[in-house]
């Protein structure tokens, strides 16, 4: 008996690896280049993601034009089924690789690869998310697979790799070992310098919340030991969306019952657990089109064929079996969940978090949350490394969304990179001139910390670095009395709230690296009309009329 084309499996694997590498390649390519605006194709994967499109349309009532690319994915799914999951999705490939590795150590008896009713969970998760989006938020995109992987690679895997490379290269450089006449640094130095100048965004890049983000990732990868591709089968809302589109694809599996002896090999090989029994009951919504079944079948009883039209009844397909009750519960869950997310003082807009400094061009908070997927592209591209995932600052709904943490990095005066990479325009793309009109916060001296105020010595490093040509920080000459009664004239720095744009470089450069003498808070940020505490100054008025 001839085995059918086992190399088909290898074609799929090569394609999968290629898409995964392309994904990582695009992440690495997302770095600031002086004088250049980041290209749109850096966000190619997000543009091809129909879940992001649907969520943005529902939540923000906006259609990001470029995101219409994802209609290609929709079309692909209508014709071929969930090939996106089986061949393209980089997170899917991570799971497939994990499963492949686990196969080497786990007994086959451990595997259960027939359909489990719990696989319906992802459709209900999607349902809840859609309802949530309909009323204005799309928290679930935290679970979008592309977003999830992008964020994990950017904020934990890459920084860890960079730490290893930097530490290793420096250790070799300092020790300068030789093997005979060969200097190890003659290899390590050029390699390290190449990475430093062309791959890393900045030296020692690191992110807050790395542990949390990584823990979540490890958990979903580890779940493969329980069920292969657990995430894709049970949780993934994008998989669910594609599953709905793949109810009656043109490419269908057909089992010739005369040849099939129900050996079950195809079931064990199935990535998606799409059959309800041994060799029977194919559910296209659950099928990743990995083609393992047809490749594995020793009797050639199983094969994929094209149907000319979607409404053809043959070969028969099985529905997933969603219930109306389940859908209603999911909808209610989404509604109630959203009410809880927004029923917080910050969610109601009655208070503002002083440290939730959003990147320049960010929309007002509710709109921002309706769009931001927390993918981390902006954090990856930020040349100072100041954009960090929010952990508590933006509430549960804003978990891992970007905010500027000036003590880690500031907003560079001439940079507009984040707005140009943002796939959903949660951060609007700005020109440099537009950006200079925008205040993202306001600097305030902490006169219990600032060196001149507290210790009577000159400092004003902050003033030196303030990028505003007329300087938002100015100095007032003041006489201070020293311990021995002597007088000293020093420069006391002050902030002009008219000029300050909240870039935070002052906080970044302050010599006090633990609790800086100057801090940026969100007061007066342009994006919130109601968050304006300071009246504009009137020209030429020294005395305020009371």
């Amino acid at each position: 008996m001839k085995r059918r084309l086992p190399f088909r499996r290898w074609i799929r694997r090569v394609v999968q690896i290629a898409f995964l590498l392309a994904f990582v390649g695009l992440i690495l390519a997302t770095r600031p280049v002086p004088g250049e605006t980041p290209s749109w194709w850096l966000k190619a994967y997000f543009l091809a993601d129909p879940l992001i499109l649907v969520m943005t349309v529902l939540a923000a009532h906006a259609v990001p034009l470029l995101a219409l690319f994802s209609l290609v994915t929709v079309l692909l799914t209508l014709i071929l089924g969930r090939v996106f999951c089986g061949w393209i999705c980089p997170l899917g490939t991570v799971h497939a690789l994990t499963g492949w590795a686990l196969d080497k150590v786990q007994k086959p008896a451990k595997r259960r690869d027939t359909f489990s009713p719990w696989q319906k969970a992802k459709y209900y998760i999607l349902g809840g998310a859609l309802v949530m989006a309909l009323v204005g938020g799309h928290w679930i995109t935290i679970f979008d697979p592309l977003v999830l992987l992008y964020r994990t690679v950017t904020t934990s895997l890459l920084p860890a790799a960079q730490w290893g490379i930097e530490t290793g290269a420096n250790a070799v450089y300092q020790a300068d070992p030789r093997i005979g006449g060969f200097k190890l640094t003659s290899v390590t130095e050029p390699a390290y310098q190449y990475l430093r100048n062309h791959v890393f965004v900045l030296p020692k890049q690191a992110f807050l919340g790395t542990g949390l983000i990584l823990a979540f990732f490890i958990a979903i990868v580890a779940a493969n030991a329980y069920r292969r591709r657990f995430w894709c089968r049970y949780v993934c809302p994008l998989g669910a969306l594609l599953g709905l589109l793949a109810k009656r694809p043109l490419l269908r599996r057909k089992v010739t019952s005369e040849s099939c002896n129900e050996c079950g090999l195809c079931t064990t090989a199935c990535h998606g657990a799409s059959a309800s029994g041994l060799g029977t009951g194919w559910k296209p919504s659950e099928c990743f089109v990995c083609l393992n079944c047809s490749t594995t079948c020793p009797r050639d009883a199983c094969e994929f064929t094209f149907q000319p039209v979607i409404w053809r009844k043959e070969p028969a397909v099985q529905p997933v079996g969603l219930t109306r009750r389940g859908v209603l519960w999911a909808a209610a869950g989404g509604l109630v969940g959203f009410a809880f997310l927004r029923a917080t003082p910050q969610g109601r807009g009655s208070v503002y978090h002083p440290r939730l400094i959003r990147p320049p061009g960010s929309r007002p908070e509710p709109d921002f949350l309706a769009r931001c997927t927390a993918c981390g592209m902006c954090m990856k591209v930020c040349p100072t490394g100041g954009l960090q995932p929010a952990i508590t600052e933006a509430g549960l709904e804003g978990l891992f969304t970007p905010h500027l943490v000036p003590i880690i990095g500031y907003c560079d005066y001439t940079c507009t990179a984040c707005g140009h990479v943002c796939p959903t325009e949660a951060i609007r793309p700005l020109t440099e001139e537009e950006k200079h009109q925008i205040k993202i916060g306001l600097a305030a001296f902490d006169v219990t910390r600032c060196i001149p105020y507290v210790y009577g010595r000159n400092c004003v490093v902050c003033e030196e670095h303030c990028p505003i040509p007329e300087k938002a920080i100015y100095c007032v000459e003041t006489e201070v009395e020293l311990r021995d009664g002597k007088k000293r004239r020093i420069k006391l720095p002050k902030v002009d709230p008219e000029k300050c744009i909240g870039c935070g470089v002052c906080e970044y450069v302050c010599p006090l690296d633990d609790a800086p003498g100057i801090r940026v808070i969100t007061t007066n940020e342009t994006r919130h009309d109601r968050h304006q505490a300071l009246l504009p100054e009137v020209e030429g008025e020294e005395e305020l009329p009371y």
Partner: protein
Amino acid sequence: MHAKSTRREFLWQSAVATGGLLLPAQLSWAAPSETKMVITKWTGPSPQSPTEFAKIATQLTEQAVAALGGMSRFVKRGDVVWIKPNIGWDRTPELGANTNPDVVATLVRLCLDAGAKVVKVGDNPCDLPQKAYASSGIADAARKAGAQVVFLDRDRFREMDIKGERVKTIPVYPEIVESDVVINVPIAKHHVLATATLCMKNYMGVIENRRVFHQDIPTCLADITRFMRPSLCLLDCTRVMLAHGPKGGNIEDVAVRLTLAAGTDIVALDAFGAEMLGRKPSDIGSIVKGHQVGLGTMDYRSLQPKEITLS
């Protein structure tokens, strides 16, 4: 491993040892017969285009070095040279926040002509290094002239014993002090605290943790200058920034002077620079301090600087 120290270690140790010796008398070791200071000035029609400006800056530099006795007075065949411009900020040349790129490029060329093995150009910018190197125009110009443009690596600064009056130890960039010659080529500009930033202050670009210097700039600058043992310094006054320094950003704050001073007495050069900025040398703490501790003379006229006018 190896009992003998590597070249790098050796140089480092010797740099520390000699730098540590508090012997101000040694600092101006140029023979008395040699010219100590030159001022070159353009008096012709003011440049109408960037190309004309570049030409003038190039000539001013060439003439200044020639009048000092040529680059071979400072750079020997096979030397490793580090040129230390001011590349502090992400600002274009017209804004006068960084050294003029053509002055730097000319120096690179002169060093290579004098037989330097390699000429490195680098600074420790305040703004993002990639941006400051690019927008200052220095990276491009220096590379074209044949230099190796070096980005300082934060991990590679080494705590060195500089035994200053106020600064005892500080992280210094080893590759710079290990070079055979360091050419100091800053731009003259206003500074909010130090009043002016000139040659002595330019050495702040070879160290880390410099933010604390602001608490006593004159003494800290004297300390680091003594450690660096200046040889050839050039003060770029082709454009000078008169206010809102050191970062600036307003073209109105910049005055075109088309002047350049070069020499071996760093305090004298700074004194001259102060006058270019419309200040008295005695107004500037680091100049007074440098004079007091013997790093040079603030009465630059006593050196009878050669004045060369070009047109």
